[in-house]
């Protein structure tokens, strides 16, 4: 596996904070969970109505989503398994090697 399969089960989630306290809740969650912000790239740039894309590790994604549920913050899973996407991105490359 590429990168020693370290991204297996990791997810990319799109959260859309609609209210001011949504953004505060989200920032508090960032302190609690080790998430990797994909867009925007700084918590200080998060604002209501603008999508936030974040990469959540496998062992945190379930509980992270349950926190979003409790706070009634809308979210969508953009990438359900990052490792698979990484393998796909490199897919052509490995076939090239074979060639």
């Amino acid at each position, binding site marked *: 596996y590429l990168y020693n399969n370290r*991204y297996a089960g990791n997810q990319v989630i799109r959260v859309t904070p609609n209210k001011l306290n949504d953004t505060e809740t989200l920032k508090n969650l960032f302190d609690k969970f080790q998430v990797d912000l994909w867009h925007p790239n*700084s918590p200080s740039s998060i604002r209501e109505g603008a999508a936030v894309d974040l990469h959540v590790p496998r062992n945190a994604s379930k509980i992270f989503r349950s926190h979003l549920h409790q706070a009634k913050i809308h979210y969508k899973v953009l990438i359900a398994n990052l490792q698979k996407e990484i393998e796909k991105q490199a897919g052509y490359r490995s076939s*090239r090697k074979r060639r």
Partner: protein
Amino acid sequence: SDSSYDYEVYHSLEEIQSWMHEMNKTHPSFIRLFSIGQSFERRPLYVLQLGKKSQHYKKAVWIDCGVHAREWIGPAFCQWFVKEALHSYNTDPVTRRLLNQFYFYIMPVLNVDGYHFSWTTDRFWRKTRSKISRYQCRGVDANRNWKVKWCEEGASSHPCSETYCGPFPESEPEVKAVANFLRKHKKRVKAYISIHAYAQMLLYPYSYKYATIPNFDCVESAAHNAVLALYSAYGVRYQYGPASTTLYLSSGSSMDWAYRNGIPYAFAFELRDTGYFGFLLPEFLINPTCTETMRAVKTLALNLLKKC
């Protein structure tokens, strides 16, 4: 060789560097390879000067890619730009005019250490790889390390943050090397373009304040024409405008530094996509993404030839 190099796959740093050497060797009348310094991990910082070689004074356009390590489509575009420019010199009058009148300084990978690390260890690494004393975290955001409103809003002074501005402006040897080069060639460089990913936007100053730049009309029309050209390829719509309002407030960015240092046209592209593959843009999207971006960059460069 150039003809067998596959521009529609992502290449490792080593492959990109050997490609640069090869292009330098096989296109002596158009390409000159040189290094502007070394990275934190002592890798060479290579730049290609692309353009019909001439004894006469020539204006220049600077294009850097790979500021943020995980944004792989950037380096792919820089290589694509060189290949397309050379291949279409004899067939496309616009390309011929641009390469005859300008030098393009192309830096396919600015953040060479980070890019290498994203291939070997952490696919989603963003920053450089410099060591920060007293902290376990490594790396500075190479787009928050420029001496313009350094480390204010939209940047972080914490070494473990993804937008860490660094211990001081130009602390990163990669940033210092580019800043030194642009300072040295200040009179000739008329446009600065930095290629990023993941928003589909064409941005211009300011990022660090909500003010309007003095030459707004000229820059706005250039950006408008560029996103129209980009749209003409596959119908992909890009937003464009001042970075502070179009994207978000961020201080210490390379585009603002270039503009403040006298380069009249400074842009940052955020290429595809807007949240389907994210940084993992698949290789089959390299061709269309680079084709549309090529049209936009050529339009920006052509704009320099107009009076405005």
